[in-house]
């Protein structure tokens, strides 16, 4: 990583670089680019409520969404999930976990020019179906996969 830049950050703090960039017009202010945090969706305790809160009350199963995830996760605390949409006009990709205390893990807005593909790492409280929801051309599509979570060795 660039050392000079890090020194700038150390001296000024993260927010000041942000302010600097925003001031020079290189960046738009917060509200203009950060998607709103959908409280209702993120606090939904189950899959159905989460889908509803996302406006995806009705959705179609789609083979054009590819989820890359382990069949069995080595550790539920860090489960790699990749999601790729081949649906034309993909606007957003969301990841939901049926058996987590709150179902919605993440939503990604995909602007034009960005590949409809994201990877991240999520927590699974237990063995669960994981769903990838895609909004494309105003419609919702979904695919799902069960991921098993194993017990750790040695009792911790």
């Amino acid at each position, binding site marked *: *990583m660039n050392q000079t830049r*890090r020194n700038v950050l150390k001296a000024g703090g993260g927010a000041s670089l942000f302010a600097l960039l925003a001031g020079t017009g290189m960046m738009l202010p917060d509200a203009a680019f950060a998607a709103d945090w959908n409280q209702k969706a993120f606090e939904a305790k189950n899959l159905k409520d989460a889908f509803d809160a996302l406006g995806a009350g009705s959705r179609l199963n789609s083979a054009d969404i590819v989820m890359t995830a*382990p*069949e*069995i*996760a*080595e*550790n539920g*605390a*860090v489960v*790699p999930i990749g999601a790729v949409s081949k649906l034309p006009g993909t606007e957003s990709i969301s990841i939901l976990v049926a058996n987590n205390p709150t179902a919605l893990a993440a939503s990604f807005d995909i602007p034009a020019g960005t590949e409809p593909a994201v990877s991240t*790492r999520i927590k699974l409280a237990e063995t669960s179906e994981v769903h990838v929801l895609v909004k494309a051309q105003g419609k919702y599509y979904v695919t799902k996969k069960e991921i098993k979570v*194993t*017990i*750790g*060795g*040695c009792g*911790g």
Partner: protein
Amino acid sequence: MSSIKLRAVVALSGLALACAVNAQQAAAPKKAPAPAAKKAASESKDAVTAEFEKFREMMEDASPAELFEAKGEELWKTRRGPKNASLEQCDLGLGPGVLKGAYVQMPRYFADAGQVMDVERRIVHCMVTLQGFKAEDLARQPFSTEAGTPDPVSLVTYVAGQSRGMKIAIPQKHAKEREAYRLGREIFNFRAGAWDFSCASCHGEDGRRIRTQELPNLTSRKDAIRAFQGWPGYRMTGGLMHTLQWRMNDCFRQQRFPEPGYASETIADLLTYMGVNANGYVYKGPGIKR
């Protein structure tokens, strides 16, 4: 509970003689026939393990350990401690400030300390001598917890990252280094405690697992690298960065032993034994652990 009775129920007469006789007998190893049942149980280096490894590799491509390497680099270069000094004059065996390849050549003997030191023991030594920190303070909470990552952990991770892709070449030139290897082997095989465990109880045979956790046979040339590879490691459980000092400590905990001293000679010797067995393998840098 604190005084669990482990007293021998055995008659001890004749033991001394038996031990003397035994020292020679032990020297002529006979291969015990492998029990059929054990063979059956070890048949599966299975799909589960293959799956784990596939996704582990994916994660190593962008490992959270990198965050700690960056932190360690900053700590290394910053003036800190009562003496307001950086660690840039710390000699890890290849000269003051030389980091490239230092990690894969430790533990080694340091004449200035008169001791064999593993990387963490040496970094603690430098923090004490160069920066003026107190060893007792550093030993008080030496392992990562949710409350934070101790500085030596990030420093070890940084130093380890500077040997990424290099061959392990732990020296055995100095008599003290050879002694450390021999004593380390004894420590590895020392059975005691409530459950009669030694390191070798779990790490002395091929193809063993605890639950689904594979156990490297650290006495074999083939597996020896696994004591070294992936450490220091980002442990997915709890999301904490851990060094080999922690790994040794927690193994002894599970061995049902009392606690080994942090950065002690016992641990340095144990790491010498395991490290030298892994000489010649290529070290891939800080890793990810379950």
